[in-house]
């Protein structure tokens, strides 16, 4: 009897292990599909660089002449981490929102009727978006020498990790939004009403200190603010900024005069990601 029990017990155990194995295999497959699709759409890769580069050079040079240079530090350098964030955010949202296309072309159904957990599908999708967005954002770092931003190996590693967190949070958010959109037209609305305001009001393009109260409030509510600031923080940390420049282009988000530590900001982004991962999984399972 005991032997049988052990056998049954171990069978159950291996069942559980198999189950986890299958879930992982599903996650990996959904992830792989995202990458294959991404590599296949050359125009998408190219177009996702055009906008940030345009912002970096047009806005960067334009504003530099207006704002001027403080201790050898100019607006271009200030905005650079913001532009990298912008690339990551746009790519992540675009990737997540491709679910709307999947619905339009029917492939979403293939996924939803399969005997797999919604969690595995959403997680795979989110990881795919995270990978793509992180790659895109990291490629943007190649422009750093052009505008005089100093890079170190450690900095690149830090940036990649922060990009990945930002991308994961934004992809889960995007999947949640996409699961609410039934029609292609809704996509434009999301871009206009969600994506652009989120980027513009995140401190990606202007310093967060000294803003009028209403704008300060909005930027503090915007979760993206807490994803962009740590990135800027680590980039600025290795730029040998003179104190005057550091004061002018300050990093850190203050609420009621208290500066939130970087680890706290990362915590906020993690919580945001977890909440939207949960909401995305819930929303994803509603077929037709």
């Amino acid at each position, binding site marked *: 009897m005991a032997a049988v029990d052990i056998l049954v017990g171990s069978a159950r155990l291996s069942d559980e292990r198999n189950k986890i194995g*299958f879930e992982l*295999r*599903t996650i*990996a*497959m959904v992830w792989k*599909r995202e990458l*294959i*699709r991404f590599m*296949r*759409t050359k125009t998408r890769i190219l177009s996702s660089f055009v906008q940030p580069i345009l912002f970096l050079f047009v806005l960067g040079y334009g504003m530099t002449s207006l704002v001027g240079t403080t201790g050898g530090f100019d607006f271009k350098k200030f905005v650079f981490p913001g532009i990298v964030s912008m690339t990551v955010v746009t790519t992540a949202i675009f990737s997540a929102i491709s679910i709307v296309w*999947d619905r339009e*072309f*029917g*492939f979403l*159904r*293939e*996924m939803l*009727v*399969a*005997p*797999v957990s919604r969690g595995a599908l959403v997680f795979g999708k989110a990881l795919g978006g995270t990978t793509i967005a992180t790659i895109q954002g990291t490629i943007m770092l190649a422009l750093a020498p052009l505008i005089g931003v100093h890079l170190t190996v450690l900095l690149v590693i830090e940036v990649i990790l922060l990009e990945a967190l930002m991308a994961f949070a934004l992809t889960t958010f995007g999947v949640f939004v996409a699961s609410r959109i039934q029609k292609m037209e809704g996509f434009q609305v999301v871009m206009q009403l969600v994506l652009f305001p989120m980027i513009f009001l995140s401190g990606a393009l202007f310093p967060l200190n000294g803003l009028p109260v209403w704008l300060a409030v909005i930027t503090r509510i915007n979760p993206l603010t807490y994803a962009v600031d740590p990135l800027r923080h680590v980039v600025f940390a290795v730029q040998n900024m003179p104190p005057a420049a550091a004061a002018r282009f300050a990093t850190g988000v203050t609420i009621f005069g208290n500066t939130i530590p970087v680890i706290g900001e990362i915590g906020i982004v993690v919580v945001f990601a977890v909440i939207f991962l949960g909401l995305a999984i819930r929303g994803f399972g509603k*077929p037709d």
Partner: protein
Amino acid sequence: MTESYDSASNGPRPENRFDDLLPNARQNTGVSTALDKNVPVAIDVQGIEKKYGEIEAVKGISFQVERGEVFAFLGPNGAGKTTTIRMLCTLARPTGGSAKVDGFDVMQQPTAVRRRIGLVFQEPTLDQQLTAEENLQFHAVLYRVPRDQVEERIESVLRLVDLQDRRKDLVSTFSGGMARRLEIARGMLHTPAVLFLDEPTIGLDPQTRALMWKDVLRLRNEEGVTIFLTTHYMDEAEYADRIAIIDHGTIVALDTPDHLKKMVGSDTVELTTSNNTLASSNLETQGFSVKVGDENVVVFADNGESQVTSIIEAAGVPIQNVRVHRPNLDDVFLHFTGRQIREGPAERSFPMHFRNFGHRR
């Protein structure tokens, strides 16, 4: 390949076509349990019903589908076909009754059911930006095809639908018919016990439909899968072993195509002769049931085609014209529902292709 094409293009021979492929279906009629892998019926439906608010889409229907059977649900749009298929695939929850697919309850064990079924929807569900192979690989993972079998299965299902050459091509380059056939292949990838096809040929041109049917019959022959399909094309139902005619959410008739036709009436052989009166009296003496019309003699015969020679012999007069009429499914549908199945203009042009081998007139 050519072999199976030939066997299919000989036209519908609905009875006893593939009985040799159904060893278990005929013999094993024991009580089925979820643990028994040789459960006798593939689909067991008991009084299943679906209400959407006040509207009863499916009004408590019961039927069984045997293993290896090609079972067709025939009815007009809105008759409850798709609702039934959705309930059997666990995509819609029945509001009453029960159903088992491959021995698993659709309400109690939906995941087990989904793993054992293949699904082909009316609408395409392929990823256009992936190749045929990649679409299949994706499916293989989702349906837990063991890693070491994936390659072999992909090869074999692509061969079944004759798409081996397009394996590495993007689905976006496929024609509508090829895409549909790839979906059928994908539905078979995880060796399901039952393949559900919801209006599989909708929107396809006649030639592609014919090809698709050959594929479907080949699947059953080579893989022994049970096929459950819905259609509102009479001609397609002819391919099925058994047909359930569904109208307003109830099954109004369920039998083999031949039996259904016999219920409607026997075959008739119409003769135009040089002397109709003489011919008819000759035939009556030989024991045929005859009616003399204005210009012809109508002989009622159970199996008109095979009796044509003996009828002509018995008539004993020169024959100018012979026409065998076998009741078709249009007649059957009309008989059971009191109306003709609705067909759009696009569908009307189609049936002639199949009719050419289906019915000799």
